[in-house]
């Protein structure tokens, strides 16, 4: 049993899970509170990566890149909400789908225009490029950082949602929109903040992963679907659900890629296992989603008040 | 005991801490009109919702023609012959009156997995639908869109659709709500004509209608049925007068 491999894969799973959480938390709140389906949420992921990369290139500082990048994505998110999303809340879901699909095309092309077709590498400061040893295990520093950052954001979000007035409004809005409006709360501002915050977190996820995978056009478009799966499995509107579902899915996805073929060889001949494993591991999280929908359609951790 | 088409025993439904219907017992004899009256919030619509299958009761039983239907879906009960009209008009707005009723005829005539024959060339279906529309006096407006007729006419459409299903029992939830005097009188006539051939459970606020139509009358207050009897006996019932008919009603 290769312990180093196992721990590395567990870490990778955790890392993927936390990145998914950053994406899914904003998404689930936007669905839950505004009933708005935003296919272009992955574009914020991409924009965050490019903003950060550009600033790192100009200033040489990764930290500055993150901070300024976050502000940048927050502003873009706010603009999108103000100019476009806001006009669609009362409209059909089909309208949401079409507009946000159009937004993806727009953002992808704008990035192409501004930064060119090839991706952008984001160099890490040396201190983050190394490895740390714990006992017999050797782990890449940067991935540890991502995990720590992810957990930190999750903690902050948790405090925000459960202990602040904004959080209370968000939770109330997720289960009963009209009531919050009736309370005289400035619903426009609430929606704006939620949307922009969600965008910023998506951007953060993009910034964190870009040094490893490179910033590229359309990088958010495939991972956003997995974020949707997380939202469904966790329960629409539930940040807690998004957290646990993201971790579960991140771990399942990562571990199955590494270990499913070995698991399958226990039950079938080696060459079948080799071809079946990649296909099956690709399908696994969707099978999980289907199972959740079949047996517990409100999600694993639905918000209170949802049947 | 007379032939009960519908038997409700011990029906309970609560939302949170409130009992919408509590231990409701009610029987409807075949071929009669059984009216249910009561103040707003008494649980009448919740009762109908449980009878039609829209809501699942917490406990109790519902027997239709001797068979328990408590676990059957809305669609199954409809196919069994229980037709419902809704308190808040629920028709297919963009379709014409005729198209709406033809859907009801389809519903009452077995499955609709026909993929080929156009419905608008089905003379038999059209005739059947037109006759249901004629019964409620809407035949001259058959080709108008449901969205483009008056509210009262939409209520009439609801009843026409229920009739077109050729049901064994009608559940009518305030069919005359929002109707003018003439339309209301027409509706009373229709229901009078149906009596004997059709079994009807009727929720209504219009007391003239109720008193002239009902063979049996149940009074609901706060989720309970406080009395079930003939119209005269109910009118004379002191408890009912106190709870419901009393203040402000002649």
């Amino acid at each position: 049993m290769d312990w180093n491999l196992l721990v590395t894969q567990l870490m990778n799973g955790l890392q993927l899970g936390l990145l998914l959480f950053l994406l899914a938390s904003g998404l689930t709140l936007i669905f839950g509170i505004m009933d708005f389906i935003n296919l272009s949420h992955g574009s914020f992921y991409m924009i965050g990566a490019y903003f950060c990369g550009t600033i790192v290139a100009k200033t040489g500082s990764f930290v500055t890149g993150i901070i300024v990048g976050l502000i940048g994505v927050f502003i873009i998110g706010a603009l999108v909400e103000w100019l476009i999303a806001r006009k669609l809340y009362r409209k059909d879901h089909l309208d949401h789908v079409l507009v946000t699909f159009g937004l993806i095309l727009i953002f992808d092309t704008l990035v192409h225009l501004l930064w060119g077709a090839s991706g952008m590498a984001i160099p890490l400061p040396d201190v983050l490029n190394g490895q740390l040893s714990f006992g017999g295990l050797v782990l890449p520093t940067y991935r540890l950082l991502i995990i720590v950052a992810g957990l930190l954001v999750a903690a902050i979000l948790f405090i925000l949602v459960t202990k602040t007035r904004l959080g209370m409004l968000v939770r109330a809005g997720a289960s009963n929109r009209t009531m919050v409006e009736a309370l005289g709360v400035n619903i426009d501002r609430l929606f704006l903040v939620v949307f922009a915050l969600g965008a910023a977190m998506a951007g953060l996820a993009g910034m964190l992963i870009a040094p490893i995978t490179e910033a590229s056009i359309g990088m958010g478009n495939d991972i956003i679907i997995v974020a949707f799966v997380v939202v469904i499995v966790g329960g629409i509107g539930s940040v807690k659900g998004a957290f646990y579902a993201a971790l579960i899915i991140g771990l399942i996805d990562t571990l199955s890629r590494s270990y499913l073929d070995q698991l399958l060889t226990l039950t079938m001949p080696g060459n079948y296992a080799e071809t079946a494993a990649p296909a099956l591991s690709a399908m696994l999280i969707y099978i999980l989603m289907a199972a959740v929908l079949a047996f517990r359609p409100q999600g694993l951790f639905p918000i209170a008040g949802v049947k | 005991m007379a032939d009960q088409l519908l038997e409700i025993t011990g029906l309970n439904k609560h939302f949170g801490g409130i009992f919408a219907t509590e231990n409701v017992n009610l029987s409807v004899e075949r071929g009669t009109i059984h009216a249910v009256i009561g103040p707003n919030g008494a649980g009448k619509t919740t009762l109908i919702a449980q009878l039609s299958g829209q809501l699942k009761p917490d406990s109790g039983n519902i027997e239709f023609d001797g068979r328990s239907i408590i676990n059957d879906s809305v669609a199954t009960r409809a196919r069994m012959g229980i037709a419902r009209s809704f308190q808040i008009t629920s028709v297919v707005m963009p379709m014409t009156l005729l198209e709406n009723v033809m859907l009801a005829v389809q519903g009452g005539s077995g499955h609709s997995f026909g993929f080929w024959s156009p419905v608008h060339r089905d003379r038999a279906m059209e005739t059947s639908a037109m006759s249901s529309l004629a019964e409620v006096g809407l035949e001259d407006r058959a080709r108008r869109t449901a969205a483009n007729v008056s509210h009262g006419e939409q209520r009439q459409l609801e009843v026409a659709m229920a009739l077109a299903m050729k049901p064994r029992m009608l559940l009518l939830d305030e069919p005359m709500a929002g109707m003018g005097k003439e339309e209301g009188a027409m509706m009373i006539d229709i229901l009078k004509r149906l009596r004997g051939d059709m079994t009807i459970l009727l929720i209504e606020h219009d007391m003239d209608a109720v008193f002239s139509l009902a063979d049996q009358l149940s009074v609901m207050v706060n989720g309970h049925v406080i009395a079930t009897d003939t119209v005269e006996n109910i009118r004379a019932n002191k408890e009912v007068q106190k709870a419901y008919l009393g203040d402000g009603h002649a």
Partner: protein
Amino acid sequence: MSWLPANLSGRSYALLLAILALAPFILEWANQPFYLDLLSRALILGIAAISLNLILGFGGMISLGHAAYIGIGAYCVGIPSYYDYYNGWLHLALALSVSAIFALITGAISLRTKGVYFIMITMAFSQMVFFTFLSMEEYGADDGLVIYSRSEFPEWLSMDSGVSLYYWVFAMLLLSLMFTHRLVHARFGRVIVGSRFNEQRMQALGFNTYRYRLTCYVISAMMCSVAGMLFGNFAGFISPDIMGWARSGELIFMVIIGGVATFFGPLVGTIVFVLLEEFLSAITVYWHLIFGVMLVALVLFGKGGIHGWLSSWDRKEADHG
């Protein structure tokens, strides 16, 4: 009963079909054979769009995963061909049955949900198909799969040449149009359309709406897989890219610009889309930007959004009686 948008008559559509029927000859005469390819591709996508319109336009089920069936149809040509099975009837039968089974399973799960859930789930399932094919190294995965020879049919039905394939496509298009028209006007179609507007009412009339919708979904998927089978033959090269959710989004776009819940709308929309794509991409490499802006503008400013179109269709169509 007229189901066409009020501003175009049946004669215009008959004319369109006539032009399409004679297209190979017209193009040959005008010395523009390249456009036959373009037209073939447009008509293939048109079949897919017509199938999507069945569930989306008429049925109100917004599926963002329909392109998966194009993919399934295409790989039902590609994979047997890889093993040297070129029989066209086999390809067709495979496409229809695999798509039917997949639609039955995923539809059974998806249709238990509504609204935002349904959209996301259809997207997720199509991504699942995408990744599954992407992971199959044997059939090319990311690099794609070459189909060396077209599906084999008896000589008089052959699709080997560009023109004969075009007529295959045209014939399938006619069948799709006719079938959809019949279906929507038949008992089944009435239940589907009624369920789109008032599901509660339909159930109260005795219809198990879930079963009707699932059947509709499966039919639509099978129709779309035929488009996929034709696409595989047309392109000669397929990859998982043809079935991503972005492709499904494009399909929705084609249905929308043509006119939802009309019979010829999806065809018109597809032709417009393909021509636009061709025209715009020749102008600039950033043509996606124009597309995106068009989409956004269309919804935000176009007569109360798509829903406004839907309702205006409803009134127009219903008043034709």
